[in-house]
């Protein structure tokens, strides 16, 4: 008995006392499996992903399997699952599946192939726009959170202004003066790098005192930029820029990305501010690890969870924004189909051909819903306050 007890206590002692029984990933999976709505969201998302990739492969190229641009004027506004009228069609015009799976539109184009083509647009807009906004958000938020207490010196501000001014002059007609200003700036950068080590020992002159004075902190600068961006009404701003730029899907992605990074910046900054003071960061600093590695290997993995949640929900809203823009007639130029412009064309036939409105509408609804459910599911799982209560 006695030896047994000792044995078991020794066994317990041998086990590493502080390591958690399950890794973070296992813990996440355990909670995730319980959340049925989130699983549903994930399954729909995977299906949507394969549809979009298949759509891209099947509808592009010079002789696609499903031709979304094939006009059959004698077959317009056929309801879903209708059989094509083989007598009036040339062999090349017969739909690939033998029936119009989702009907045809007012030009007799097969809605099913158009939906396939549009899926890829929705997918890429969502991911690229959110990718851009997350990258900018992490970069700005990381700098504001980690280097926030550093101050920007007045000579840096002057230097930046002079650089911008010089580049502007170079692009405008005054190439000579612009180059001169740029050269002067470069000379100043070189000079200050050379004298940086010595300047701390020597007495500084009055001019240098002013130039090296602290204007404001990096944190203030970035947060003010965020404030400025938040002042614009976002959909209106996107609409303005998209209307002014030439119509292209890439412009829409970039514009949506550039106008939606502010939330991520705030998240990342808040996470960095609290993580920066933690012991493991102090330990990493004491080991002499450089800032780059501390940020990306030590802080970022701990700060990434809320960013992923907001990115998932951001994809949903980017898809909605793109659909709204193509509904208003901006974005991808006409022959290319997007879910928004199929719906926009179909709205004129809402009573005669309701499938032209309902098929793209329900598709957008389901995809956006799946992203929202998945994102909210992860948020619930990652929220420590809700753990163990349900």
């Amino acid at each position: 008995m006695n030896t047994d007890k000792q044995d078991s206590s020794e066994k317990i002692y041998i086990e590493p006392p502080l390591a958690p029984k399950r890794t973070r990933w296992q813990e996440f999976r355990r909670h995730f499996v319980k959340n049925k709505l989130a699983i549903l969201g994930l399954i729909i998302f995977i299906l949507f992903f394969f549809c979009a990739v298949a759509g891209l492969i099947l509808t592009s190229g010079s002789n696609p399997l499903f031709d979304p641009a094939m006009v059959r004027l004698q077959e317009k506004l056929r309801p879903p699952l209708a059989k094509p009228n083989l007598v009036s069609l040339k062999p090349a015009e017969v739909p690939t599946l033998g029936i119009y799976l989702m009907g045809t539109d007012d030009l007799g184009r097969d809605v099913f192939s158009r939906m396939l083509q549009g899926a890829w647009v929705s997918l890429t807009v969502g991911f690229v726009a959110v990718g851009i906004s997350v990258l900018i958000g992490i970069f700005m938020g990381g700098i504001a959170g980690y280097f926030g207490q550093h101050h920007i010196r007045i000579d840096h501000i002057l230097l930046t202004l002079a650089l911008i001014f010089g580049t502007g002059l170079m692009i405008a007609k005054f190439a000579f003066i612009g180059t001169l200003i740029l050269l002067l700036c470069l000379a100043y950068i070189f000079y200050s790098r050379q004298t940086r080590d010595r300047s701390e020992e020597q007495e500084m002159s009055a001019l240098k005192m002013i130039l090296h004075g602290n204007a404001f902190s990096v944190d203030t600068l970035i947060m003010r930029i965020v404030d400025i961006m938040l002042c614009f009404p976002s959909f209106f701003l996107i609409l303005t820029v998209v209307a002014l730029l030439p119509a292209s899907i890439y412009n829409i992605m970039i514009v949506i990305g550039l106008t939606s990074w502010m939330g991520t910046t705030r998240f990342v900054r808040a996470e960095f501010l609290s993580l920066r003071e933690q012991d493991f960061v102090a330990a990493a600093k004491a080991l002499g690890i450089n800032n780059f590695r501390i940020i990306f290997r030590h802080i970022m993995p701990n700060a990434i969870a809320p960013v992923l949640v907001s990115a998932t929900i951001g994809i949903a809203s980017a898809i909605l924004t793109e659909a709204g823009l193509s509904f208003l007639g901006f974005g991808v130029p006409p022959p290319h189909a997007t879910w928004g412009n199929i719906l926009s064309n179909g709205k004129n036939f809402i009573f005669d051909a309701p499938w032209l409105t309902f098929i793209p509408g329900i598709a957008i609804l389901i995809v956006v819903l799946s992203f929202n459910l998945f994102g909210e599911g992860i948020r619930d799982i990652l929220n420590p306050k809700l753990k163990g209560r349900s």
Partner: protein
Amino acid sequence: MLSFIGRSVVQKTITLFFVSVVSFLIIHLAPGKPSQVDPLNPKFTPEVVERFQKEFHLDKPLYIQYVYFYQDLFTGKTVSWKDNQSVLKKIWERFLNSLPLFIVGTLLTWTLSFPVGIRSAIYRGGIYDRSATFLSYLLISIPGFFFAYVLIRFVVPYFHVPVIGMETFGMGDAPVYYLIMDRIWHLLLPSVLYATGGIAILSRYVRSQMLEVEGQDYIRTARAKGLPPEQVHYKHALRNALLPFVTMFGLLLPALISGSVIIESIFSWPGMGRMAYEAILARDYPVILTVNFISAVLVLAGTFISDLLYLVVDPRIRL
């Protein structure tokens, strides 16, 4: 308190200045010129374009245009390039059209989302909570324009709700109550649409706030001393859960002017959103910039008001 007000006024003025610069640059550096909107129009001879550019200072460098524009704006002399009308007057007319939509939509949002959210929080995990949650996800995810057409398809044939414009055309000498009823009838679908997204989001937010407060120790104390559940829910929990919502009154302000481009263009509602949309299509820079500037002012004023309200409502916060 006073120093806080002073500091934020200075800060917000600086922000506003940068917003004005950035919006001006975005508009003017984008490719394309307003004089190129209609190149096929035979009336647009080079002389006319030149006169047009001179009239609106388009031949001057950018920073002088900037000064001219904001000088005009602050003295109220800005005119639209499209029809030479005063921009402020145009905006005011459209604003009065958008106002009923905004008021009814906001009232619907705030009166519906609180009961729904509170009930879901009290009966957490029940059938009501789960269906409300799913419904609100559905409403958040549905594209506004699609929902509009679903309503038009299924509501209009049975109830004969008008879907075009603000009033029935040619109602010149109808009695006043009839005109008012007509207006309300026209307001029905747009304002329901205006409110749906808001109801879904706000009721989720109310629910999470209530849940947060219901988990606090003082709620357990209140229950433990034997208070009736209604008193615990509505007196102890709800009052504390309401704190963050007081500040949202300030954030409502910018929604006043932005309107909704999509809803207003579906229902041909002559409101702010539609005016902005038409101005964008016509490259009517003064209108676009003025709307942008006013909405930036409202956003800044809104955050300022919500900060102040927080200060008044929550005694724990000292700035």
